[in-house]
C-alpha cells in the first residue's frame, strides 16, 4: 500500500495540538502550582482538583476566542490562501512582540487569587497560546475540506466551527491533564521543592516558537 505524505499531515497536526497542550500544562507559569497551593491551603486533594476546573476552563476559552473567528473566515474559500498568509504574519508579529515587550505583566498580577479561571484565560491570551494553534487549525480545516470537496458554504462553516471546538478541547484537555498530573505528583509525592525546580524561563523559546510556527505556515501558504 502506498501512503502519500498528505495522508500523514492531519496526524502530525493533531500531534502538535496535543503536544502544545502538554507543553502548556507542565509549564508552572500556566498555573499548575496554583492547584498545589489550593490543595495545601485547604489540606484537601479535592481543593486541588477543584482548582483545575477554572484553570482548564480559562485556557479553553482563550483558545476558542482566538480560533473561532478564523472558523468563520476560512469559509471564504476563495480567500483561503490570503487568510493563511495573514494568520502566519499575525503569529510572527506576536512572537516578535513577546520577544521585545518583556515588562512585568502588572495587569495579570492584579487578578485575585480566587479568580483562577479569569487568570488562566488572561495568561493564555497574553502568551498567545491560542494564536500558535491558528496555523495548525487552518491546516486541519484544509485537510477536512479536501475530503469533503466543495460543499455549500454553510456546511463548510459548520465543519470548520466543529473543528475549532475540537482543536480547542483537545488542546485544553492535554494541557490540564499534564498540569493536573504534575500538580498531583507535587502535592502527593514530590513536595514543594519541585515548584522552583520545574520552572524554566521559556519566554525566549516561546517567542521563538511562535515566530517559527508562523514562518513555516507562511512558507506553506506562499508555496501553494
Amino acid at each position, binding site marked *: 500500500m502506498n501512503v502519500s505524505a498528505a495522508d500523514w499531515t492531519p496526524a502530525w497536526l493533531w500531534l502538535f495540538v496535543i503536544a502544545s497542550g502538554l507543553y502548556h500544562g507542565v509549564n*508552572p*507559569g*500556566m*498555573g499548575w*502550582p*496554583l492547584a*498545589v*497551593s489550593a490543595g*495545601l*491551603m485547604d*489540606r484537601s486533594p479535592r481543593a486541588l482538583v477543584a482548582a483545575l476546573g477554572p484553570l482548564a476552563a480559562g485556557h479553553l476559552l482563550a483558545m476558542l476566542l482566538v480560533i473561532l473567528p478564523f472558523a468563520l473566515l476560512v469559509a471564504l474559500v476563495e480567500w483561503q490562501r490570503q487568510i493563511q498568509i495573514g494568520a502566519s504574519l499575525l503569529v510572527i508579529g506576536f512572537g516578535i512582540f513577546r520577544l521585545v515587550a*518583556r*515588562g*512585568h*505583566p*502588572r495587569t*495579570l*498580577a*492584579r*487578578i*485575585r*487569587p*480566587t479568580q483562577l479561571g479569569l*487568570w488562566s484565560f488572561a*495568561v493564555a491570551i497574553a502568551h498567545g497560546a491560542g494564536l500558535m494553534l491558528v496555523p495548525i487549525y487552518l491546516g486541519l480545516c484544509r485537510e477536512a475540506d479536501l475530503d469533503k470537496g466543495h460543499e455549500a458554504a454553510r456546511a463548510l462553516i459548520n465543519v470548520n466551527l466543529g473543528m475549532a471546538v475540537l482543536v480547542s478541547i483537545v488542546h485544553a484537555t492535554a494541557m490540564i491533564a499534564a498540569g493536573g498530573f504534575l500538580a498531583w505528583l507535587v502535592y502527593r509525592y514530590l513536595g*514543594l*521543592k519541585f*515548584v*522552583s525546580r520545574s*520552572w*524554566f*524561563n521559556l*519566554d525566549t523559546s516561546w517567542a521563538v516558537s511562535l515566530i517559527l510556527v508562523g514562518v513555516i505556515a507562511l512558507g506553506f501558504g506562499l508555496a501553494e
Partner: protein
Amino acid sequence: MTIRPDPTFHASPKLAMEAPPESFAYTLLLSPDFSKPDALAVIDAKPDSPTFSRVVHTLTMPTKGDEFHHFGWNACSSALSPLAGHAFLERRYLIIPGMRSSRIYIVDTKPDPTKASIHKIIEPEEIFRKTGYSRPHTVHCGPEGIYISTLGGGGKDGTDGPPGVFIMDCETFDVLGRWEIDRGPQKLHYDFWWNLPRDYMVTSEWALPPQFENGIVPEDLLSNKYGHRIHFWDLRARRNVQTIDLGANHQMALEVRPAHDPVREYGFLGVVVDTTNLEGSIWTWWREGGTFHIEKTATIPPEPAPKEQLPPLLQGFGAVPPLVTDIDLSMDDNFLYVACWGTGEMRQYDVSDPRKPKLAGSVHIGGIVRRTPHPNGKAFAGGPQMVEISRDGKRVYWTNSLYSTWDDQFYPSGIPGAEVMANASAGGGLELARDYWVSFPDGYRAHQIRLDGGDCSTDSFCYPSV
C-alpha cells in the same frame, strides 16, 4: 532575568528554613547630625570566616541628609506564585529609602556583596510628582512589583494629604504611582505587610512628619495624637475594608508581622507605649468569617527609676517605659521577638498559641537606666531596636538606634552604632553570642539589618509549610 528561579526563593516558609544560612548581614548606617552621607555596611556573618562579625564593605552614598531607616529586597519568595508573573527576577537589589530626603537608592549586591554598588538613584521630585507622597519607609516585594509605604503626604512638611503606599516597577525601578484606590479613614502610615493567597494587606500608624522629624512631641503624645489604629485592606482591589482603633492611649502602633505560613490568618502588632501606664504591648490580630479582630495579648511594664538617672523627657514620670519599637516573628511562626528599646531588653515570646504569648527568653543589654554591657564587656549604648531573625530561627541580630532626633531625647549621651547577635535555643531561650559584635565607623548609628538570601521580615510565601 534568569533561566531558573533564584535559589533563594522558597515555595514555603519550611523550605526557607532548611536553606543554607546567611553569609552576610546588610546594615544601614545613619549619620545622625547629617554631617556625612549615610551608608550601607556589609557584615560578614559566616562564623568560620576570619572577618566574622566585621564590616567587610561600606557603600557610602553620594548625598547627605537622607536618614536611612528601613529597606528591602527587590524580589523574594513570593515570586514563586504564577499569579505574580515574575518568577525569574533575582534577589539582587536592595531598595534603600532616605526617610528624611525622600530619595531612594537601588543598590546592586551582585556579583559580590563585598563590592555592592549603586545601581540607580530615584530623586525625591520623582516620588513627589508621581505619588503625592513623601518620606518612604517600609519596602516589600509583591504581586504588582515593589510596594513602598510612606510617612508623609505632599508639601514641604508632608502634611498636604495623607501618606500611603506606592508601587515601583520591579525591573526598571520606575515609580508607577499610588497603590490605594479607596483609603477609607486611613490618614497615618507606618508599616505594612500581607497574606498573598488570602489577598489582604495590613497597615499601621506612626505619625505625621512634624510629629517625628524634629523629635518626639511630648504634648502630642500625652494628648494621644500619635497613631493608634490598624487598617485592613483588600490587596488586589486596593481598598480599605476595615479599620480598628486600639484605643487612643495605645500610642504608635508600629510593626506589622503576619504569620509567614499563608494558611494562618493571624499576625502581630507592636504598640510603643500606653500613655495611661507607660506599658508597651503586643497585639494579636486575626481574621475569622471574613472579619478582622485584634486584642492586646501581652504587656510589658515600665521600670521605676530615680529622676536623676532619667533624660529630661522622662523625669516627670519617674520610670522608664519599655518602648516596644520593633517586633519580628520567626519563620516557623513560633517565636516573636520584642525589642524594648527603653528598658534595654530583647524579649522572646512563644507564640505557638498566637493569642496567648508566653515569655520564653530574655536578654538585657543597654537601656536608659540599666545600661547592661555586652557579655564581651563592651558598653552597648541605646537599647535593642531593629531586630532580624535568621531564616532557620537560630540567630537573632539587632542594632541599637531608633531615629536620629529621638535617639537624642531618650539617650542624650549618644548612641555609637553597634550590632549584636543572640543564639536562640530550639525550645526557647536566648543568649548573646560573645563573638558577634560589630563596631561601625565613628559618627554612624546602625539601623535595620537585612540578611542575604532573605530573612524573617522580608519573604512572603504563597504555599503553606506542610
